């Protein structure tokens, strides 16, 4: 069923002049709700009118939305995606991200870029792009959706997981001392000596181990990480107003 829908969508999407927010919302949302009935979607597309918009919005409200982003913001993100995608490939590569000046200036810029790409993947398509950005959405205005099956991207747990993975590049579930040193080196550059770096890392690991009271190994596991973040106001630190 999914392939039939995709084919249908592609035919529809080729009609470039219908680049409305509804289209993009649909294009995005399809990947999130594989169990939406095909017949209802076909019906909505046969009428390119305001009714089509109404039906689609009701679909969004009732169905599961992993990323709660309003359709006009989704449109803006899509335009941003298109502007980053200079050669109109339909997906982004690492070079496209690196072309963003402020990102190249950012000490952990490469890590952030890496977080968009799943392991082994060389390209990022629009749904994945939005998914990562959704981690930074403000949680204040979220309505509680009934029957939500998937946790929203900007929940605390998922946000912590995202940041944990910024540290834990080999994705083994632990931040080893070496990985921590690497991050510190990136954030501090050549401004500190090796010893200072080591001492900072040592203290961080000790603190994490103390708080968690768990195995005194030389790494920080996700649980220890989570415990050390308990007092941190994550919503404040990790929300970007743009996605309001």
């Amino acid at each position: 069923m999914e392939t039939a829908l995709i084919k249908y969508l592609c035919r529809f999407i080729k009609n470039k002049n219908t680049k409305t927010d509804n289209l993009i919302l649909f294009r995005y949302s399809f990947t999130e709700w594989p169990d939406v009935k095909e017949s209802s979607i076909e019906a909505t597309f046969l009428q390119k009118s305001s009714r089509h918009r109404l039906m689609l919005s009701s679909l969004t409200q009732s169905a599961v939305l992993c990323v709660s982003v309003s359709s006009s913001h989704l449109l803006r993100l899509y335009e941003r995606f298109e502007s980053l995608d200079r050669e109109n490939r339909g997906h982004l590569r690492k070079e496209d991200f690196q072309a963003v000046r402020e990102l190249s200036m950012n000490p952990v810029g490469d890590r952030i870029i890496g977080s968009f790409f799943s392991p082994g993947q060389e390209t990022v398509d629009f749904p994945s792009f939005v998914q990562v950005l959704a981690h930074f959405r403000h949680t204040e205005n979220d309505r509680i959706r009934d029957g939500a099956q998937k946790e929203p991207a900007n929940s605390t747990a998922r946000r912590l997981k995202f940041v944990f993975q910024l540290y834990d590049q080999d994705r083994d579930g632990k931040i080893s001392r070496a990985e921590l040193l690497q991050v510190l080196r990136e954030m501090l550059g050549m401004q500190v000596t090796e010893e200072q770096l080591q001492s900072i890392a040592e203290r961080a690991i000790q603190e994490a181990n103390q708080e968690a009271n768990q195995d005194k190994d030389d790494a920080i596991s996700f649980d220890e990480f989570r415990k050390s973040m308990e007092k941190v106001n994550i919503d404040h630190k990790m929300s970007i107003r743009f996605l309001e």
Partner: protein
Amino acid sequence: LLDLDTQALSLHTTWNSFLLSLTDWATLRIERGVNKDLDSASEFEMSDIFYFARRGVESIMDDEVTKRFSAEELESWNLLTRSNNNFTYISLRLTVLWGLGLLIRYGFLLPLRVTLAFTGVGLLVFLTSVIGLLPNGRMKNFLSEKVHLMCYRICVRALTAIITYHDSENKPKNGGICVANHTSPIDVIILASDGCYAMVGQIHGGLMGVIQRSMVKACPHVWFERSEVKDRHLVAKRLSDHVQDKSKLPILIFPEGTCINNTSVMMFKKGSFEIGATVYPVAIKYDPRFGDAFWNSSKFGMVSYLLRMMSSWAIVCSVWYLPPMSREEGEDAVQFANRVKAAIARQGGLVDLLWDGGLKREKVKDTFKEEQQKLYSKMLVGTQEDRSRS
């Protein structure tokens, strides 16, 4: 003369204070940002990375630079679908109005303007070739001036550009360099319809090439071959030769190097400021309510851009001629360029950005990353040193 002196002095002091406040602001912003996350205890915490991560993702979503390279967002709608991103069906009356506007613009205005444009360009090519046959002398210069002005004014009508010129007493004189901010190729037509300039540019093929070659017959412009453009010394030499000849017209240069979206002025390339001639800055500001004149060269080609321009309502802009500036003692070309840029930005009500216009296509230098690292490390290591001392 006294006026100029005091003006120059005040510019200098404002420039200095501007520089100081900029550095203060930059440091304060970063420190404040870092401080927020480090709270009272300035020690490394695992949550420090939040700050950098958020900054990074913010820049992915929208950065200061790309904002300048995409068309300005308007608050109200001027009945042009292209300037309204959220165009949806709102009411019958509005649609009818828009449809009427469409009819007028495409059915009546566009053909009229296209004919005018063709006439203007055709006349320019023809008449300048004719004048080129005359021997060099006052008659030739006089005629060429008249011809150029006439043809450019026809082109201005072709675009229905309503231009207000301010401070015409500061118009560029022979032997000087006229410097302006760049929003679209129309800038050239707008400036050239009020005064005669020597153009600088690369020789193109096709229609542009024909126009360029015929223009140079009537009065000397500075056209470069593509190979010559890379050689900066050659370019500088030719420009300075032209400038030193007082009988030749002032050179028109756009130092940003590329089209910016008319909300800001980007870094000026220092080449034209090294020559040592008097610089006449000009600020051009388009009124976006009537039609967006910005040429996004990565999105639209020249022809589609011109068609868009000709099917807008009108192009309304203001041109300010600023008093001439020269390089001062102890000022190098870059500082001089920045000073001129600040003056233009201030006059046109544009934001003065320090970033490079070439960033539209290139990457960034490593020194900026180092600065961020420096600031962050100062927060951490600085306090640790204090602690060890006490």
